[in-house]
């Protein structure tokens, strides 16, 4: 009995140990590395608070599940713009007062320093990322250049990789079908537009490998499982630069948007979470993170601080989603559209996927 008592004490002791840590839920892979290097290590050095990283395919889903079940185990989450709006609308997030965010080094208030739309009631944007498509130039020497090429199985035979979800796929399908970027969302508001997008996806459905985690597409390309794949631009950049893979990004038809830090309601370490969000979205940290992956910082004052990739020779600018040359046929993702339509379009997408 005494032994048992000791064991139980040990057991509960383990459960309660190390509670000043904060847990950050993000997207894994190269993006996680950039956050660890850009935010977490300096944060731990400055505050001696440990940061535990954990990954999900899309952190918005577990956040919602956690808050609704009353089981919040993470303090900070990194989610897409539309999901941040949606979660905030549903009352699942703590509000973050933008005026408490640190000012830029030149004294500009945070509210003026962030890019337009980057601050909302519950979320602070950290980066601009983009969904693009990429191929392996050692396998396809005369590579695709247009989004329509991605859907052209005759000109470019081989498997395709696509994210398992409606978002960005529907937009890209319409752009590949000849719809101008500016008209995409107007078209998706109509049932015919959605049918048209699914019909376009139908043309490559049989040849598609579906990915879920952001780290999978570069792996699929490297393993030769697919000829080309959509991906988050930073992942392709990281594989191409850090691992010297012959991957080429096609910017035509890219869909770009903000990624946001949010704090779920009921976060175990709310104070630590607030501190982390303020620290991570400060000017030097956003710039530091951008040295590790090609995502544009959401603060104007961070932009001039970014120079070279951490290898010390690669210029980052051409790889940023927002650089001029990459924006010729680009679509800013509509958070209004996805905040309202995400569930129903994903439901339709999954039914479409399950029907062989």
């Amino acid at each position, binding site marked *: 009995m005494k032994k048992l008592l000791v*064991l139980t004490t040990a*057991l*509960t002791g*383990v*459960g309660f140990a*190390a509670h000043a840590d904060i*847990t950050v839920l993000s997207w*894994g*892979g190269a993006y996680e590395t950039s956050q660890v290097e850009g935010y977490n*290590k300096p944060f*731990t050095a400055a505050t001696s608070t440990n940061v*535990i*990283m*954990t*990954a999900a*395919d899309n952190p918005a889903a577990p956040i919602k599940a956690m808050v609704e*079940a*009353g*089981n919040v*185990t*993470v303090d900070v989450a990194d989610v897409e713009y539309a999901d941040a709006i949606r979660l905030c609308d549903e009352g699942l997030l703590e509000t973050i007062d933008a005026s408490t965010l640190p000012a830029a080094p030149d004294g500009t208030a945070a509210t003026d320093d962030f890019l337009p739309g980057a601050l909302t009631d519950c979320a602070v944007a950290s980066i601009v990322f983009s969904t693009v498509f990429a191929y392996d130039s050692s396998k396809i020497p005369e590579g695709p250049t247009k989004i329509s090429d991605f859907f052209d199985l005759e000109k470019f035979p081989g498997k395709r990789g696509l994210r398992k979800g409606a978002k960005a796929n529907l937009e890209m399908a319409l752009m590949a079908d000849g719809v101008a970027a500016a008209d995409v969302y107007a078209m998706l508001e109509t049932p015919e537009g959605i049918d048209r997008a699914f019909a376009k996806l139908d043309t490559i459905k049989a040849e598609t490998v579906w990915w*879920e*985690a952001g*780290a*999978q597409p570069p*792996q699929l390309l490297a*393993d030769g499982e697919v000829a080309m794949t959509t991906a988050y631009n930073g992942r392709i950049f990281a594989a191409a630069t850090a*691992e010297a893979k012959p991957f080429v990004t096609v910017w035509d038809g890219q869909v770009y948007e903000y990624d946001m830090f949010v704090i779920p309601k009921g976060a175990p370490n709310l104070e630590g979470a607030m501190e982390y969000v303020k620290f991570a979205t400060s000017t030097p940290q956003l710039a530091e993170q951008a040295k590790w992956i090609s995502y544009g910082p959401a603060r104007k004052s961070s932009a001039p601080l970014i120079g070279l990739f951490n290898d010390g020779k690669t210029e980052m600018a051409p790889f940023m989603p927002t650089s001029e040359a990459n924006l010729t046929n680009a679509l800013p993702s509509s958070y209004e559209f996805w905040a309202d339509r995400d569930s129903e379009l994903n439901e339709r997408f999954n039914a479409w996927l399950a029907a062989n």
Partner: protein
Amino acid sequence: MPLPSYATPLERLWRRSYLVICGLIFLFLIAPILIVIPLSFNAEPYFTFTAKMLSFDPTGYSMRWYDLLLTFGMTAPDAARDSSWWADVWNNATWVRAAKNSIIIGFFSTILATVLGTLAALGLSRAEMPYRKTIMAILISPMIVPVIITATGLFFFYSNPCGVIAWAGVEPACFRLTGKYLGVVLAHATLGIPFVIITVTATLIGFDQSLIRASASLGASPSTTFFKVIMPLILPGVVSGALFAFVTSWDEVVMVIFLGAPDQQTLPRQMWNGIREQISPAILSVATILVIISILLLATVELLRRRSERLRGVAPQ
């Protein structure tokens, strides 16, 4: 079984091809497990045998993925490898943390499953046990019911363990069990219990119940009888049951996905992340270590089984 002397040539041919077929099936069983071992020493970040590996060029092999297991997640992986480096490994390396979690959770869930399971098996093997079959069916069912269903149920239950009583009209709220070691331990114990029951009841077949009466009539207290008479006889069954329970926990990932927080990241959970994200040969080196552990566990269980059969006199013919 050698062929009888009256076998026809056709039968001899059949016999030979039959052995070849069996050999291929054994290969199918074992090759996938062994293939990860050489590949985990790959010097390149690929999953196939490189030309250098095939020609047994030593430069084609390396320990880099095993090294990565130690350094991944460390705060200062490049520091000098002195005692503070090892402390860093011990405290921060992702895979080391996962291994520690696996051991802690496995240990406690095994103890729980073994104690409760052994007692129950003793009761179940008594002829007087009422509703024996039904109760046995309930106790074995965690092994049969798909884990995803159990995990889903526990997810709701753990969110508010007192919520079950809400059916009676009150709505109390109490501590939750998700994201806690205790929650994962209880869940894993539940999954391990059927294995303990099955192995211990198997040992108790042929257990002479009159030994208990003999011991009692000689003046032994029930606890003396248990530790001096019953335990030595069923010990091999209990230990192998415990090993089964441990392996169940050691290998379990669905419960950890549904119920565990990042603090409870176990080895399989970490592998699950790794496989879906970046299947670098580091995963293969973890796999190799796990294969070696399972070989050791298997050897232990086999030895115990033979010992138990010898003790109980049900020696294999």
